């Protein structure tokens, strides 16, 4: 039931056209096309091995496609094919206009430096150099993700799993990205911790008007956060539509199987 303000602009932010990726004779991702609009949350669901993580890496330019294109509308309004960006441009995009929330926070954080530095580092990477302002902004973000300011100088390796994940989110959002990729962000967390994180992500996404591509195998996560879902199986998108439509009125045999496998609350 994510229902934040969705602008009726007709210009997509991210467009995937016939994306495919094969490893030798194995096709991990076949002919995927879609458009993502500003403020839209798209969930990619499917079992492990369905190709959803590969797709996320293709979309975020971390993996080169065997065929097809990904284009992105940059902050200057010009849409560029990601494959034509230079390495520096791509890195800059990753540090400013994009976020990437990994399932394992250790992949997205520097575990040995302080929480404040983890958040501040992204600001320094985009040219902030005033220590006081960086620290204030970092404190502000720790508060927004419900981390006690008293822990700002502690390294995330002293944090619980849920706190680490919230810190990773703060680190990603501090540069006010327009698009965030999330790979099973609640994957390794206890159920109670998951609920808190989902609620936090849901309100941040709607306050900031973020576009999100979230990979999850958990249909409850998709229902809570996303506007639209794509169901993947064997590297293909087999069903797509409005989240509640696909989950309440699934058409494909595989989607019906996924939906019927949820335990009732």
């Amino acid at each position, binding site marked *: 039931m994510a*229902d934040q303000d969705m602008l009726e602009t007709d210009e997509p932010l991210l467009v995937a056209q016939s994306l495919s990726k094969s490893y030798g004779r194995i096709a991990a991702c076949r002919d995927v096309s879609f458009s993502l609009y500003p403020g839209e949350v798209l969930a990619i669901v499917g079992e492990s091995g369905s190709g959803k993580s590969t797709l996320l890496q293709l979309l975020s330019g971390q993996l080169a496609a065997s065929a097809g294109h990904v284009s992105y509308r940059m902050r200057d309004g010009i849409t560029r094919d990601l494959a034509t960006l230079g390495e520096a441009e791509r890195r800059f995009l990753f540090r400013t206009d994009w976020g990437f929330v990994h399932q394992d926070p250790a992949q997205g954080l520097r575990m040995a430096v302080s929480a404040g530095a983890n958040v501040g580092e992204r600001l320094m990477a985009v040219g902030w150099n005033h220590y006081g302002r960086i620290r204030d902004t970092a404190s502000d973000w720790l508060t927004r993700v419900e981390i006690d300011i008293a822990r700002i100088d502690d390294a995330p390796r002293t944090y619980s799993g849920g706190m680490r994940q919230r810190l990773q989110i703060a680190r990603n959002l501090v540069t006010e990205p327009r698009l965030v990729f999330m790979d099973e962000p609640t994957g390794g967390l206890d159920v109670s911790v998951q*609920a808190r994180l989902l609620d936090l992500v849901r309100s941040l996404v709607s306050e900031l008007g973020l576009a999100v591509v979230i990979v999850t195998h958990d249909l409850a996560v998709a229902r809570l956060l996303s*506007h639209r879902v794509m169901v993947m199986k064997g590297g293909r998108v087999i069903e797509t539509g409005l989240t509640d439509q696909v989950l309440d009125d699934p058409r494909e045999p595989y989607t019906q199987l996924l939906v019927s496998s949820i335990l009732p609350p």
Partner: protein
Amino acid sequence: MSTPMTAMIDVANANKTFTMHLQGGIELPVVSGVTFRVEASECVVLSGPSGAGKSSILKMIFGNYRCDSGRIGIRHRGAVIDLATAEPRQVLNVRRATIGYVSQFLRAVPRVATIDVVAEPLIVNGMARADAQTRAGKLLHRLNIPERLWQLPPATFSGGEQQRVNIARGFISELPILLLDEPTASLDAANRAVVVELVAEKKRQGVAMVAIVHDDEIRHLIADRVVDVTSFAAAA
């Protein structure tokens, strides 16, 4: 012959069948040839026995169930949009600006306070939080939810309390179309009377409503017209 659409809802020849792939591909016809219109300031009640497809029709109008064929014309921001063929983004826009749905059960978001659950539809449409909360409080008060509960998430409330929170959330909006799925199912007489009043107020404001109500007395009080769903029974 086609005339320009004046109705708020214009359902024409809509069909719905479920194909149960996990049960050997059984075809489960739900409704066929669903055709009716709802004008502004009118409450149409769908009647028919359990299983006749009343809730399915409401869900089709909300874009929650997909139609196999036919048309779900909705008057949205001065134009007509066919929800049977609309893009997901358009359906979401229609839900934000035009159609509200009051289901029997509250799908509560963990940790959100009752007052905010109710105020949210106004905030989403741009009202200041404080004003939205004031309006939410008035409605909760009318529906006899004591003020000491307003700051608590509704997840732990009784069934009847949750339903009243849900009704408040549905009726607080200023949307021109409301779909009501048994809004009085688990309410006592006093609260049923409040819902009847709320429906009457919405009619005066020009809202078009489609409702499912099993209680005959409530149906008499709110229905301007009854559409018998058994005539849309799908030929099995």
